[in-house]
């Protein structure tokens, strides 16, 4: 199955190159067909790889440069179930977003398709690579496509400024990652992940490794929109076309989280295996902080896409905390969370696209009651929001349940309570917005919410039924993610393999395949009592938050001042954002420098 | 292929790099800045040669003498007009 590995990257990129070279010769129809076929093929091959990776990791050595006596000469793609699943998820989102855009993105559709394909290829490469510099290359390609897509609507200032802030902050992140890579190279003289881990095993971690850890993690955290490195995300999301937001929220942010886990379990687990305490505590604390700040900011938005963007930040925080527990069960939870969240949040963004197109506005207050005669769109919005609560057996439930169970096993009993509140608050804000727009409930003024400038609709005569269909497919996939038979044991086994550094290294460097173990049943997921309780609790929180938002609209004076301070920090000035990144790096680096052995 | 090099030359080139980088970053006038960054690019080129990296030096040279100045000058020209 090794031959399939380059295809999810190569096919979209080749298609993009062909589309540019025949740009002015072929009709638009052909272009759209090529783009959708290419992304569909990439998706199909990603799924093939995912199936093949169930028994053992699938490898592909580019150029045929197999390792020579355990020394990696070339670049490898190493697909384990998680990596292959991330590639499948990313390419699936590209595929669906391209179909949705068939009529939605009429203007300059060729370049749009080209950039989407490049984005998809880069995300697939990022998921599959087993080489740290190759990761950097895909990180940058992902970035370049994303910056251009974020600024796609150049007729307005917002998108351009959002894209600028996005580009500058993420470029700084890339340089930090590259510096971290250089330090690892100075220490080991190697770029292959498995082999770096092998080299570092047994040695005491020196300062080179600690600083490298800091720089690489923070660079990835910027991509993953972790507080205080998250500021670019809302600016970029609010302004980008809806199908692009699907990729940003559904895959790009999660890939940042994913690679933190990847690089920890292949490289940094080796030197820090005995004393992971400081890494664990800091990641969990930052993750929880992100989750709460994201939920709070989400509640304060009236611009629907901005609201969804902050809820993405909140969920990204929960994911980081799950990774930070450094435990295979929580990791399985994070994987399931990523899966369900991607489809639900993607679907919600597509609903925003429909709202913007049909109602010519995206502001909750101004649209009050305007969506009363759009039942299908409204129902989709509520279903998507419902999936993000964590109600037992719906949407993100399985992911949250596993994550919570892992946290409780590790003695972090307070994590499930916080995730319940945060997920409930985000979903509550979505309920509130939905009730106001589609039902006309609540006050027609709310001073608490941040006003935002208008956004112009993209297209006027798009084919709505097609867009409904794509949106419904995404939300439907997200809703059933918790009841897929056999998903739970498979994700747990996959994460056990993911955290097994020595097995990964011997597979990559010596080709030794460790077999997957006994056959897994196709059972419906079971749930512990506590996760059922937390899931139901989240629903209550969500309803309460929605009710407060609709009819109360006030917060106690005590929290008003800190609220204003947090809101003020989201200034839109790129210098501020860079300052947060640099300051955050200095603080986190100092903490690790003093506490890691 | 050894490119003749001596340690003092490396040291001088590196220190010049640090100084020129500082000048580029702290110069507030964009036009003066693009001149400085051209000089900085040339110093980097020399530094790369002393570090035995002719390929990299060549890349830096073509980028710093053509690509950067053209693009940046055009951008400066465009953003200047309306400001007056």
């Amino acid at each position: 199955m090794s031959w399939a590995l380059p295809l999810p990257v190569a096919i979209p990129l080749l298609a993009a190159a062909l589309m540019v070279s025949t740009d002015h010769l072929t009709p638009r129809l052909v272009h759209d067909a090529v783009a959708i076929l290419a992304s569909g093929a990439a998706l199909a091959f990603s799924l093939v790889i995912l199936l093949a990776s169930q028994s053992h990791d699938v490898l592909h050595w580019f150029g045929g440069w197999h390792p020579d006596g355990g020394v990696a000469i070339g670049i490898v793609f190493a697909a384990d179930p998680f990596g292959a699943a991330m590639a499948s998820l990313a390419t699936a989102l590209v595929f669906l977003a391209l179909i949705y855009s068939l009529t939605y993105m009429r203007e300059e559709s060729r370049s749009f398709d080209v950039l989407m394909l490049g984005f998809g290829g880069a995300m697939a490469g990022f998921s599959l690579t087993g080489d740290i510099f190759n990761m950097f290359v895909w990180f940058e390609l992902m970035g370049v496509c994303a910056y251009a897509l974020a600024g796609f609507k150049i007729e307005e200032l917002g998108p351009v400024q959002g894209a600028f802030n996005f580009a500058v902050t993420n470029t700084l992140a890339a340089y930090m990652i590259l510096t971290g890579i250089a330090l690892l190279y100075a220490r080991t003289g190697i770029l292959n992940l498995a082999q770096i881990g092998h080299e570092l095993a047994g040695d005491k971690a020196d300062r080179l490794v600690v600083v490298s850890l800091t720089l690489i993690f923070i660079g990835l955290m910027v991509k993953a929109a972790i507080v205080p490195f998250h500021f670019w995300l809302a600016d970029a999301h609010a302004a980008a076309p809806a199908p692009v937001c699907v990729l940003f929220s559904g895959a790009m942010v999660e890939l940042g989280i994913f690679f933190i886990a990847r690089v920890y379990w292949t490289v940094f687990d080796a030197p820090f295996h005995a004393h992971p305490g400081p890494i664990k505590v800091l990641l969990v604390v930052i993750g929880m902080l992100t989750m709460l700040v994201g939920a709070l900011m989400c509640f304060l938005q009236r611009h629907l896409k901005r609201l969804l963007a902050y809820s993405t930040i909140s969920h990204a925080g929960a994911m980081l905390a799950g990774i930070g527990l450094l435990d295979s069960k929580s990791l399985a939870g994070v994987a399931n969370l990523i899966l369900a969240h991607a489809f639900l949040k993607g679907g919600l963004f597509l609903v925003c696209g429909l709202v913007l197109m049909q109602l010519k506005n995206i502001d909750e207050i101004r649209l009050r009651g305007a969506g009363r005669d759009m039942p299908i769109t409204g129902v989709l919005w509520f279903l998507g929001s419902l999936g993000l609560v964590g109600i037992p057996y719906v949407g993100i439930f399985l992911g949250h349940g596993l994550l919570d169970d892992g946290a409780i096993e590790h003695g972090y009993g307070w994590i499930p309570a916080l995730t319940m509140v945060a997920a409930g608050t985000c979903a509550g804000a979505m309920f509130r917005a939905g009730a106001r727009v589609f039902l006309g409930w609540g006050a027609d003024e709310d001073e608490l919410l941040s006003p935002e400038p208008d956004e112009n609709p993209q297209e006027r005569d798009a084919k709505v039924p097609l867009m409904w269909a794509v949106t419904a497919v995404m939300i439907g996939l997200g809703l059933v993610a918790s009841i897929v038979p056999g998903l739970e044991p498979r994700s747990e086994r996959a994460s056990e393999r993911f955290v097994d550094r020595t097995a990964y290294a011997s597979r990559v460097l010596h080709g030794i395949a460790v077999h997957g173990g006994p056959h897994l049943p196709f059972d419906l997921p079971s749930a512990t009592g506590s996760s059922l309780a937390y899931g139901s609790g989240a629903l209550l929180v969500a309803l309460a938050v929605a009710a407060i938002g609709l009819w109360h609209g006030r917060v106690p004076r005590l929290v008003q001042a800190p609220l204003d301070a947090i809101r003020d920090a989201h200034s839109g000035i790129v210098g501020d954002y860079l300052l947060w990144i640099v300051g955050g790096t200095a603080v986190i680096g100092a903490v690790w420098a003093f506490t890691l052995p | 292929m050894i490119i003749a090099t001596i340690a003092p030359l490396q040291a001088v080139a590196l220190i010049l790099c640090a100084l020129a980088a500082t000048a580029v970053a702290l110069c507030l006038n964009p036009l003066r800045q693009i001149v400085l960054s051209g000089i900085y690019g040339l110093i980097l080129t020399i530094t790369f040669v002393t570090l035995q990296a002719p390929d990299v030096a060549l890349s830096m040279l073509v980028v710093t003498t053509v690509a950067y100045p053209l693009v940046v000058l055009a951008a400066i020209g465009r953003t200047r007009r309306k400001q007056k």
Partner: protein
Amino acid sequence: MNYLAFGVAAWIFCVGVYGAIVSRNLIHLALCLTVTQSSTYVLLLAIGYKHHAGAPIFKGVKLGTPAVDPVVQSLTLTDIVVSVTVVALVLALAVVAHEHSGTVDPDELASMEG
């Protein structure tokens, strides 16, 4: 001398970031980013340098002659290309932002966006 090159790399990184933070002009900011990126060139090449070794080019030289690390050089080459493209993209965004607002000051831009 042992740590001069690394110190210079750290210094360049910091100067570039500082310039970007306090910048009042988007184009100036883009050039500061290139300065930050150039620190990675110096760092990578300094890591791969070996005393009394030549460039990794074996034309007219016997194989086995000491040569500096070729891998960091190929990484730096990639890095330079990336730098040019990102700067071009950032500058394009700056020019378009100016088109809309008539300013290239990040603070003013943010206040216009509201």
